[in-house]
């Protein structure tokens, strides 16, 4: 099945020319570089979206808009509710620090009403409306909101960007395939005479195709690996920059599976290029007798 990969030097000489020649390895390298970076971005976005989604899927907030004098009672009420697993009251000082970013020193004024906020985790199936009714009996106006609802638009955007990235990967792969088809047709035109001679002495289409298939496989492998190495360097630099940036980008990490997918990409691109070249050459050869 893979005998065509291992040909004698004499068979390699049939197409002549240098082992790595022409624009094909360069085109493939640029495509591979771009695909790797975009795929890494897409995977990082997917990873971030999953991380955010996981961290907020069971997270809720009990908010009392005008503040609550009986915060401890509310915390006990929430903690005693069936299905609630963790409860944490957000201190008023922290709320004021948060508001200070928008309001400035006025946020520290006693006349500014600061809402009371209790974050809690609840298992699926928890009766949140009953909990909200109990909370309202203690602090009228209290309401429960899911973190997921407030972060939903952000998650939606992250997932959309992730699919845009994967779409770009597909588009770039199609562009790489088109470049390979052009390269294969160019190679066929260049070697038309040799092909005619080979056909004339009884070479089959597959024998001729294997010569081109092998050459394009080598070109594609060299190009895609070179592009992947360059992309890996850029990703490492970005990763070290992200580590320095700390919490802003800390969530956008690539897992082991993501790294394996990225490592497989240059080989997938090589296989795609080889298959496309084989198909293009076979189709072109069928036009001759």
């Amino acid at each position, binding site marked *: 099945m893979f005998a065509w990969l291992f040909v*004698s030097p*004499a*068979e390699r*000489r*049939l197409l*002549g*020319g240098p082992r790595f020649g022409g624009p094909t390895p360069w085109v493939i390298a640029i495509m591979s570089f771009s695909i790797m970076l975009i795929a890494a971005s897409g995977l990082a976005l997917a990873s971030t979206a999953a991380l955010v989604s996981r961290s907020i899927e069971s997270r809720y907030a009990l908010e009392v808009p005008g503040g609550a004098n009986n915060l401890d009672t509310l915390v006990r009420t929430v903690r005693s509710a069936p299905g609630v697993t963790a409860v944490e009251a957000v201190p008023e000082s922290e709320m004021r620090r948060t508001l200070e970013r928008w309001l400035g020193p006025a946020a520290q004024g006693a006349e500014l009403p600061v809402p009371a906020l209790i974050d809690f985790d609840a298992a699926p199936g928890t009766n949140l409306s009953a909990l909200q009714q109990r909370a309202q009996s203690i602090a009228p106006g209290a309401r429960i909101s899911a973190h997921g609802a407030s972060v939903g638009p952000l998650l939606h955007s992250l997932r959309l960007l992730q699919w845009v990235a994967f779409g770009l990967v597909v588009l770039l792969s199609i562009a790489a395939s088109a470049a390979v088809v052009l390269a294969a047709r160019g190679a066929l035109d260049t070697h038309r*005479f*040799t092909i*005619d*001679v*080979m*056909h*004339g*002495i*009884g*070479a*089959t*289409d597959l*024998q001729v195709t294997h010569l081109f298939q092998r050459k394009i496989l080598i070109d594609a492998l060299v190009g895609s690996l070179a592009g992947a190495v360059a992309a890996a360097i850029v990703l490492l630099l970005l990763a070290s920059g992200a580590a320095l940036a700390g919490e802003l980008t800390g969530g956008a990490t690539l897992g082991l599976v993501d790294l394996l997918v990225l490592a497989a990409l240059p080989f997938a691109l090589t296989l795609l290029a080889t298959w496309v070249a084989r198909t293009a050459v076979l189709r072109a050869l*069928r036009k001759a*007798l």
Partner: protein
Amino acid sequence: MARRAHGAPLDQAPGDEVVAVAEFDSVGLRYGTGAEVLRDLDFRLRSGSFYFLTGPSGAGKTSLLKLLYLAQRPTRGRIKLFGEELSDAPREALPPFRRRIGVVFQDFRLVRHLSAFDNVALPLRVAGASDEEVEGPVREMLAWVGLADRASARPPTLSGGEQQRVAIARAVINRPELLVADEPTGNVDADMANRLMGLFTAMNRLGTTVVVATHDVGLITATPGAQLIRLENGTLVDPTGTLRNPPHPPRGDG
């Protein structure tokens, strides 16, 4: 002159059973929408015979040879090669038949970037021979055509005659059952022409059917037992006109 029976071999005597290498039945050929360049060709080539194909320029000799070595399909009629009907055969079926045919092209058709050795070895490699299997026969063949010391030379560095001999060596390296040559002596001097014809005659003695297109009457008369196919305006002229064997054995043969 009696008219030859439809599809009978060119050199068939009445009642003679023959094994035909090629059979043409009402064959016509046209390129594109032009006029037919070959018309109503009816003949058979006897296995192991030697044929000269003659006729004026433009008579259709090269087109007829193309039909013989499967580079062209007839636009009408039927062609059988080695007993198989190939006129409408799928193209995937043709390579095994092409491997049984050796072709010497008028323009040699050597691959320029390959050495003389690799050019001669090409049919063996296409047939699946390994480098080890190729080495001996190719060296022997190059020696046979007098080019043992030019094995590593590439075609552009060879003279016309040397290229012609490489082309002939390539055509006969795998002992074809049918050898087709288009003006094989057009680029060599008379001495070399005689030597090359000697090679063809030797191949013929080994059982290969040989068809040589040529204008060179000297070659024809110097080849004992050879038969004549004459084309004019795309049709077989005097199809019973078998070559009269030369009265004397050729000199300097081989």
